[in-house]
């Protein structure tokens, strides 16, 4: 494991752990953004440039801003009056620790610890475009349909109800 991987992994873990444990919701979203940028750096180290840049564009540029707007509109911004963690926080954390233990045991016992690293695959955006148009054309159309439905659905769900005039 190289130094760059350790730095990016530390950044990601710090950001996401802070996101799930800070009291102020806006601080949580900002540290989540740091964690997501760390993940994008990891994607770039793995050689998936397109996915890394798309991750920054979509998550940092859209989802984080959407979450921040939602926090502002539900008036949860600022120091919260009620406690930040729910009453059942102990059982929740215990479940998460058990899940991590099971996953870690499965990973370390199932995969052979081999040092043979395959060469870096060279993927260009042309190949991704070709794949999207030929092999993955049907999922592309379905995603278009799904995004349209989500767009219309989100607007309708969040629209304030029309007040009836007396």
């Amino acid at each position, binding site marked *: *494991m190289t130094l760059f*991987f350790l730095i990016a*992994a530390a950044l*990601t873990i710090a950001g*996401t752990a802070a*996101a*799930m444990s800070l009291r102020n*919701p806006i601080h*949580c*979203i900002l540290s*989540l953004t740091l964690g997501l940028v760390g*993940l994008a750096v990891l994607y770039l180290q*793995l*050689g*998936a440039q397109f*996915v890394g840049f*798309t991750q920054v564009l*979509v*998550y940092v540029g859209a*989802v984080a801003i*959407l*979450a921040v707007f*939602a*926090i502002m*509109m*539900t008036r*949860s911004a600022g120091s919260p009056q009620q*406690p*930040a963690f*729910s*009453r059942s926080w102990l*059982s*929740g*954390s215990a479940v*998460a*620790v058990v*899940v*991590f233990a099971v*996953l*870690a045991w499965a*990973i*370390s016992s199932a*995969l052979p*610890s*081999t040092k043979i*690293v*395959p060469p*870096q*695959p060279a*993927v260009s955006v042309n190949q991704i475009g070709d*794949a999207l148009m030929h092999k993955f054309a049907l*999922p592309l159309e379905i*995603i278009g349909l*799904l995004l349209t439905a*989500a*767009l219309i*659905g*989100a607007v309708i*769900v*969040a629209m304030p109800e029309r007040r009836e005039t007396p």
Partner: protein
Amino acid sequence: MSPLNAYLLLSALLFSIGLAGVLTRRNAILVLIGIELMLNAANLNFIAFWRYGPNPAALTGIMFAIFSIAIAAAEAAVGLGIILAVYRHTKTTDLDQLNSMKG
């Protein structure tokens, strides 16, 4: 340990951090953020297996990750819309208080 093991362990750690956030936070929006984090951990898994797997020329891992990012963004939008609608009705986003179907 091999690089693939390291990436899979990191992805498992991120997944459990997201799961801990979903199960312990009170604010509904932060629960949604925890779900987004779990989806991101799964994306990291896909890309790691694409890189160290047997057939990287098929681009399956990258395609799956791209579609997963698109779906996660759409789901975040709809989920936040639902939270806004619930807030407008019950004036709270505290999940411990939203425990009855009445009203």
